[in-house]
């Protein structure tokens, strides 16, 4: 059934920033910190994520022109929100950090948002996309989510599905107005929230009756896919993290599906897609774009900046890690804000600086907090999964990938098929 409850965005008061108040800043030092899951279920997320942040700050501190060095403190919360909360309290009350940079985990972020707001502690980048991070326009709000919010992600995916001239007849037309859109979602934070966005958008378009929404689990993937295929959708949106997404792809392929698939930005990363030549097209939203046909080995310079930093800082094993990229973005967005601060660094000046105008996101587009916009990245590109074999020649992205000491030749990649666009732009409004 399609009876997915619509997640309500939590109404949180955003207190005004008291001017002058500041902690963690001295003439020679700015203290920042974060808590991340370094052990426990999401251990594999927190470790590379924090390592990248540390690498960026170390590089920054190494610069001679930097007087106020960044003192980065990071704690492990073992994927337990309540420990994450304790860590945040410790950071704020005992370590007296100036800001949180790179806040990891749905639970921890959810648990600490009220506290952060209450204490006016700026938070830059949340490694989750829960809907609580969506505030709309709230000037002075110290929360700066960067990553797209899951719900937005879902809305964009749906908008792409019905607007792009890709999924209709012959693959070069829009979907018919009565075409069916299948949604396969996982029953976790990402899956459910993305699905909620899809349903909301379908309702906005008065096409919710053409939605086929089904949830799947690891061990029911195959039968749910069978059932979905029996209903003949024209396009399938897969809402879920990497692992279930891959499972869905494999199941679809095993069952001989030919229906194109669209997925969340979470999965639009060549390094987390299993290499397999699927019998159908795979699309995904993207806010990070590391592919550049002109770049070295087919990757954009911004990617190489990241990769080289990781290698230089002794983290070569994370040179293609998506979570490390996220940490890299987090640290850089914070630094961009910092550099804009004019005069003395206080909470007020920092927030003003962050809101001063769009900030460039490394490897991605830009994020705009001006006028109090707090909805994460709301514009994304659409990419398509291509294979080396088919792309040689007309797809320079992967044409002459060379082997380096840490990257084996990419046999596949996501290639942009539609530029970074907001919902309005997608609809052509």
């Amino acid at each position, binding site marked *: *059934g399609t009876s997915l409850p619509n997640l309500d965005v939590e109404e949180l008061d955003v207190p005004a920033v008291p001017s002058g108040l500041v902690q963690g800043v001295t003439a020679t030092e700015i203290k920042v910190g974060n808590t991340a899951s*370094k*052990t426990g*279920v999401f*251990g*594999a997320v927190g*470790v*590379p994520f924090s390592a990248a942040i540390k690498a960026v700050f170390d590089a920054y501190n190494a610069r001679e022109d930097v007087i106020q060095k960044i003192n980065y403190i990071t704690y492990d919360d073992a994927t337990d929100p309540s420990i994450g909360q304790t860590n945040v309290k410790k950071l704020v009350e005992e370590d007296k950090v100036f800001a949180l940079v790179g806040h990891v985990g749905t639970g921890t972020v959810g648990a600490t948002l009220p506290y952060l707001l209450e204490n006016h502690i700026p938070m830059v980048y949340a490694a989750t996309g829960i809907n609580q991070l969506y505030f709309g326009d709230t000037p002075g709000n110290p929360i700066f989510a960067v990553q797209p919010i899951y719900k937005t992600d879902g809305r964009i995916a749906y908008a792409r599905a019905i607007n792009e001239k890709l999924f209709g007849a012959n693959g070069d037309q829009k979907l018919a107005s009565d075409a069916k859109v299948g949604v396969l979602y996982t*029953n976790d934070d990402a899956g459910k929230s993305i699905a909620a966005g899809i349903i909301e958008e379908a309702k906005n378009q008065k096409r919710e009756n053409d939605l086929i929404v*089904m*949830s*799947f*689990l*690891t*061990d*029911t993937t*195959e*039968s*749910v896919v*069978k*059932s979905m295929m*029996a209903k003949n959708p024209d396009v399938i949106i897969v809402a879920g993290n*990497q*692992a279930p997404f*891959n*499972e869905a792809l*494999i199941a679809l392929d*095993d*069952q*001989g599906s030919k229906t194109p698939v669209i997925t969340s930005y979470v999965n639009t990363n*060549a*390094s*987390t*897609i*299993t*290499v*397999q030549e699927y019998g159908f097209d795979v699309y995904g939203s993207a806010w990070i774009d590391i592919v550049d046909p002109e770049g070295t080995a087919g990757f954009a310079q911004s990617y190489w900046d990241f990769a080289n930093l990781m290698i230089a800082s002794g983290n070569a*094993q994370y*040179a*293609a*890690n998506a979570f490390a990229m996220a940490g890299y973005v987090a640290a850089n967005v914070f630094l961009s804000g910092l550099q804009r601060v004019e005069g003395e660094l206080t909470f007020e000046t920092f927030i003003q600086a962050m809101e001063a105008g769009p900030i460039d996101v490394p490897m991605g587009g830009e994020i705009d907090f001006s006028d109090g916009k707090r909805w994460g990245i709301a514009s994304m590109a659409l990419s398509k999964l291509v294979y080396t074999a088919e792309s040689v020649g007309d797809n320079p992205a992967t044409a002459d990938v060379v082997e380096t000491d*840490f*990257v*084996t030749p*990419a*046999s*596949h990649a996501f290639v942009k098929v539609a530029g970074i666009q907001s919902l309005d732009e997608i609809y052509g409004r």
Partner: protein
Amino acid sequence: MAFFIDIVISGILQSAPLALATFAIVLIFRTSFTTNFAQGMVGTVAAFVVTYLLMPSPDLTGLLPTPTFFQYLIAILAGVVVSFFISMLIDVLIFRNSKFISPVGKQIVTMGVVLIITGLLPIVFGILDRSLPRIGSNLSREGVGAFFYFFVDLFAKINIRVGLHTMISFFLSASLLTILFVMLRFTKWGLGVRATASNEKVASMMGVNTKFITAMSWAIAGGLGAIAAILISSSKNTFGNVTTYFMISIQVQAFFSAILGGFSTFYGPVIGAVIFAVLNNLFGVYFNPWGTTVLYLTIMAIVLVKPLGLFGKKIAKKV
């Protein structure tokens, strides 16, 4: 109807690794009277060992290792051996030396083992998740492959699409289980297991080498757990399909299968596993998204009616 049959049959085929895991749990339950929470973890170690042998450092670009069928087989064998001995060690080092622990205490001990392995895995194999390709992804249609492809094609003819991996894991599990059942039924080991299960002390007094029986049972369970873990993780053919925690849900499912079938026989739990897998698939489709809930409610209802499981026999207490 065709759809229904499709789901039932593919459910049965998919249940094979679960059946192995369930059998392993029951084997240990019967000899040591504990539900072994470490069962899944021991299997996980094997999966890590296999990934390590196939690809010592995890690949960064999402390429899964591409071993040949026989390379893969040898790596699996190594993994199974490792789990075999780890599991045996658990019995020899811990359980043999703690005769006075209550069943619940034993459960706690296995939990301790889970913690130790959980802690050691990232230290030994690194923090990043690792990957296993599907078994048979490189298998040609000649030789060994012909056998499996024959069945894949056979099913395809009646419009039931099953992957090669599923087919391989089904045959592997089914033959292992058959061997074990034959052993239990026709060798002294079987009687020893049953006697040990009933009362270890008395069995020992009657000349049953209960130490050997339990150690072997643990070892075999470890090996089975390893195979189950490898089959399950690799079935996903996904980057990062081998993580520290991936067996937890399977383990819970195996417990439930055992409960469903009843701990008092060996065949019961295996059938329980098949039923579990089939119902899981059916409910996942027909009660979406409440499949899991309905599944557990159903099992609960069955267990309430038959507290000892579908095939359970009560050991009567006579006063």
